[in-house]
């Protein structure tokens, strides 16, 4: 995983280091939607640089605050391992990964760049929050655009898709079934 990023030992300020951490995290991809980085996904809530222990011999450390998308997302553990490996490879010594549950993750935190990447990958990106699920049965669906032919003439097949974060749709025009990264 060579990223061409500077070695952290050449950076001086905590701000520079923090920026560097975000650049490193941009290279850590969601294993289930491998076009999105954990930063695109909006699950990185904060980064704190930990100063080297006094007395020498140590190096910079970092604490990364991560929130899960869904409680049962099976990718949580593997994402944490990938974050740890990427940071170790770039020279950080102590790495803490802390899980934050509140505020609860929402698809509103997916970056604009992430939405474009999803669409190019064939997954319809989530609408913004106004369409979040309510428990009322048979509620009206918002029109979801087909990521292939751009038609809005699509229908919901199932609110639950191949992963917890997606719903199944089908385009009524090009007939292609597709995933919608459902609003959450």
């Amino acid at each position, binding site marked *: 995983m060579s990223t061409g990023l500077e070695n952290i030992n050449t950076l001086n300020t905590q701000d520079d280091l923090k920026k560097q951490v975000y650049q490193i995290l941009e290279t850590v991809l969601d294993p289930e939607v491998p076009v999105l980085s954990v930063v695109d996904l909006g699950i990185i809530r904060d980064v704190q640089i930990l100063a080297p222990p006094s007395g020498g011999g140590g190096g910079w450390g970092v604490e990364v605050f991560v929130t899960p998308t*869904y409680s049962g997302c099976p990718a949580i553990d593997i994402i944490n391992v990938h974050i740890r490996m990427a940071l170790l490879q770039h020279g950080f010594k102590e790495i803490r990964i802390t899980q934050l549950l509140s505020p609860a993750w929402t698809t509103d935190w997916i970056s604009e760049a992430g939405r474009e990447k999803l669409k190019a990958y064939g997954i319809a990106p989530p609408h913004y929050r106004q369409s979040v699920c309510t*428990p009322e049965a048979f509620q009206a669906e918002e029109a979801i655009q087909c990521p292939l032919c751009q038609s809005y003439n699509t229908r919901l097949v*199932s609110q639950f898709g191949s992963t917890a974060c997606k719903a199944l749709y089908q385009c009524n025009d090009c007939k292609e079934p597709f995933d919608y990264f459902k609003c959450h």
Partner: protein
Amino acid sequence: MDTIRLNYILHLADNALILGHRNSEWCGHGPVLEQDIAISNIALDGLGQARNFYQSAATIAGNGATEDSLAYLRDVIDFKNCLLAEVPNGDWAQTILRQFFFSAYQYLLYTKLQQSNDGQLAAIAEKSLKEVSYHLRWSSEWVIRLGDGTEESRTRIGNALEFLWPYTGELCLPAGYELDAASNGYGVDVSSLQSDWHQRVSSVLEEATLAVPETGWMQSGGKQGRHTEHLGYILAEMQYLQRAYPGAEW
């Protein structure tokens, strides 16, 4: 050790785990692929919620307890889930109706638990509520579809209603630790959910053209560890590996 708080959190965790485990039994056996995926997703949400609650409980239990030891190394009498969570799946109608009753309860419970003065419980409730909203919507639609469907589907959901109804009384019947949890500000007094639960359930049953059963004699005891004969079989299957090969990982 705060035993009452531990029992309260274990009760929440056990509900999510046991119902999640029951739903996971459908994986690969759903009536159609899309619904197989749906019920498996709902099972996964339950397991995730259970993990969060068990992690929180483990910090109180101390003594080397972990989320895994709490899930895999306790016996039937230690489990505090409602009986409704452990009843067999039966047919699709019975599974759907059980999920609907439970989701309607969890939706109300988690809404209030967001106000808990235990920050971790409030956070888990906030997170879980978003997932339960999907479960409640999905199961409501299925209850209506089956009740107001064909003669066959209507017969099946009617049988499920008759079988499951006596297990619903326990949901809003508080155990001692729930009352203590509520009076200490970190739990919810579930008796305060009763009328809202009944109202939501009645409106969906009516839309499904099903008669709301009279409230008669109700089963209870799960919250105190007095379970049906079914829980032992669930635990035997679920805990086998960790019991036979302690600490096994892969």
